[in-house]
């Protein structure tokens, strides 16, 4: 294929050529960045919470001025009596539920280094939730001590691997200490995963697992929220009966219906906005590709019509249909390539803007070749119909009205 005559012809249509190239460039910039945003959001949707979600439900009672111990005793025995319940434990929160305690921590009692979420759990809570310890020890019965405002003064805790990496990069976190206000905490176990109740958002993927799990005896501080474990197939029925049982056991409490759900439901709700965003971005991408290809079809058909005579002449002097087809495809390839070159610059400019204002990470380089391939393909597809029409122009056209 000789590009020289194509370039010569394009020089006579500078405006239209520039328009298509510019359109491709803009499409490239928006396409790459929108895809990048989508993939980030989809990764968020597949976030591992670190608990056996499908077997868990939460029962949440708001009890103002209740005696915590008496409430726990009544509700937990009522919940355990629900047929199908495998385990019940007092907790303060679960992944995708309402947050219960974000607290700044220090390593030196002076300077705050991070704000993790503190999960508090009574005896059996870790087992019921299905937390996976990768190092350290399980909690013993005497680790569950009572507290009257927040935690016991010295508390052994588990932290997640990713939070340990944040606090002590590259070191073994076991046995390390940190403080939350005046409370002293000691790491005795490391969890594979445990997401905060509200992972993601613009806090970033790194902070999604900044969680601390602390043992606590149910009572003044820990009451009203219970994790219920049951076989996944039983879970909806168990939850329904557990809600009724809890309300009956504690008539003075208000059942928080929005929070008393199965974990899969809580997760579904939590990510609804993310899914809307993914849908919207996908819609933008599809519409964008459609509009861009329609533009190419429109302009290419116009060109074909305008150049009917030239095509006829070329056919008359021996060009085959394939030659004509290849000519238009090569032309489109050239224009799209120019568009992609400009688009590369615009893509990174847009990414920089997004990084500055929306804390989006840097766009990985491999998005560009993928985006380029997609746009080349789109261009070739869009130009196919007009090019085929051009190839069908009979040589006899050349003889008309010249």
């Amino acid at each position, binding site marked *: 294929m000789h590009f020289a005559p194509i370039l010569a012809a394009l020089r006579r249509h500078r405006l239209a050529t520039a328009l298509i190239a510019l359109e491709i460039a803009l499409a490239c910039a928006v396409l790459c960045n929108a895809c990048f945003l989508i993939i980030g959001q989809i990764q968020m949707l597949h976030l591992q919470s670190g608990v056996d979600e499908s077997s868990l439900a939460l029962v949440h009672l*708001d009890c103002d001025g209740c005696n915590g111990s008496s409430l726990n005793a009544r509700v937990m025995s009522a919940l355990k009596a629900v047929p199908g319940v495998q385990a019940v434990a007092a907790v303060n929160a679960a992944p995708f539920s309402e947050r219960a305690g974000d607290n700044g921590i220090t390593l030196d009692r002076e300077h705050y280094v991070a704000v993790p979420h503190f999960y508090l759990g009574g005896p059996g809570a870790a087992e019921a939730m299905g937390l996976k310890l990768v190092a350290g020890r399980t909690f013993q019965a005497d680790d569950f001590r009572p507290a009257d*405002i927040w935690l016991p003064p010295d508390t052994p805790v588990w932290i997640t691997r990713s939070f340990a990496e944040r606090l002590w990069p590259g070191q073994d976190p076991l046995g390390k200490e940190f403080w939350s*206000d005046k409370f002293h905490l000691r790491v005795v176990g490391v969890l594979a995963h445990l997401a905060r109740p509200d992972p993601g*958002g613009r806090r970033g993927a790194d902070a999604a697992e900044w969680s601390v799990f602390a043992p606590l005896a149910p009572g003044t501080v820990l009451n009203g929220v219970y994790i219920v474990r049951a076989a996944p197939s039983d879970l909806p029925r168990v939850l329904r009966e557990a809600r009724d049982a809890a309300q009956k056991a504690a008539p003075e409490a*208000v059942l928080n219906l929005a929070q008393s759900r199965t974990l899969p439901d809580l997760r579904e709700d939590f990510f609804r906005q993310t899914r809307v965003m993914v849908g919207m971005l996908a819609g*933008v991408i599809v519409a964008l590709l459609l509009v*861009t290809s329609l533009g190419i079809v429109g*302009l290419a058909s*116009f060109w074909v019509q305008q150049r009917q005579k030239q095509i006829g002449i070329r056919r008359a002097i021996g060009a085959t249909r394939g030659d004509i087809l290849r000519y238009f495809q090569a032309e489109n390839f050239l224009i799209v390539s120019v568009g992609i070159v400009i688009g590369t610059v615009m893509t990174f400019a847009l990414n920089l803007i*997004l990084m500055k204002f929306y804390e989006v990470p840097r766009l990985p380089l491999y998005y560009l070749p993928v985006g380029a391939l997609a746009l080349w393909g789109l261009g070739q597809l869009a130009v196919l119909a007009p090019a085929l029409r051009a190839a069908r122009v009979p040589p006899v056209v050349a003889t008309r009205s010249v």
Partner: protein
Amino acid sequence: MFGYYLDLAFHSLRLNKVLTALMVLAIAVGIGASMTTLTVVHLLSGDPLPGRSQFIYYPQVDADTKGKDSKEPLDMLDYQSAVDMWNAKRADRQALTVQSMVRLNPGDAVKSPVLTMMLSTTTDFFTMFDVPFRYGGPWSGQDDVARSRVAVITDDLNQKLFHGENSVGRTLRLRDSDVRIVGVLKPWRPSPQFYAVRGGRFADGDTSDFYSKPENIITPFFSGLEINDGNFQQFTCWHLPERAGHLVNSPCAWVALWVQLNDASKVADYRRFVADYAAQQMALGRFTHAGNTRMRSLMEWLDFNGVLPGDVRLQAWLAVAFLAICLLNTVGLLLAKFLRRSGEIGLRRALGASRVSVFAQYMVEAGMIGLIGGAFGWLLTLLGLWLIRQQPVAYADLARLDIPMFTLTFLAAIGASLMAGLLPAARACRVVPAWQLKTL
């Protein structure tokens, strides 16, 4: 002449239906997407108190003993500072506000206990923020200090409990107290819920909760603290409070003070008052630093908190980029369409039409495409806003097209298509008649 151009435009649009449809589609989709998001931006970034917001200020002092003068003060006040400044009555109007979740007990009207948000404030709140009443009115200044058990409820709650009847004089049982209803509001939906805005800079753009509906129950500030003692949430604490939920005289920031200052000299005076108060508290040893005071106007405060959710801003930018691509596409298609008719243009020019009239004719045609595109774009905008209303966000119920945005939809569509038509029309009117006639 204009009529003739319209006629020509109609004729031309009918001539090549596919190309026309493509252009109309491009304009409609671009306008639909951008107007949907711009409507949301417009609704969420407006002034919640038009004509009044410039008199409303939000003073801040910093009681945090761990803080420094170089940092922004905390977004809320500690109890002592808030009440001291309120008591000084140095502003034209002043209102303390604090929110809490309260239990509404079963009574004549309520079947089972429910938890609901309660706002506790002082009587100036209603006049300061122009809150409309349907029945009754605000409580008196006397009720504020006497800690009367009274309440104002929203239209929403009044519909739910009393089927919209005049419920003034009836009682509600809040936790362990009976409160007497003294006023019922008309539907009131400030956007954003400006008096509750705080902490925006820590929300990472996740600020849609600033657009929540107002609290159902409003009680006098000090009465509220007594009724719901133990259930208050801190904005933040620099030491652990002794009793969770009981924050009076705790090392926590949790109360907001709003003041109304009717002229510039009063604003300057009040700034000085706030600074003096902080200095005096430092002299008394309660503050460890005193230079950290601020007083932003309402709009400055909303701006500082970045009330517009990050998602909404991102969507708006995407939509505008999308509109740009659609327009570029329309430029290309119009160019194709106009230049294809070079022969016709040549003939008209040869018969005496001036360049200007050729230009005008093509601009009319472009504008017509814009008008039709605008109509479809308007339908798509309505669809887009409907989709937003289905979302589980606090501002969902606000997403409606108002008259200015409706007008703007058409103006934008026509303006955009005229802009898109500019280049092709300029090209078209430069067609040299002789060249075209030769080949006819």
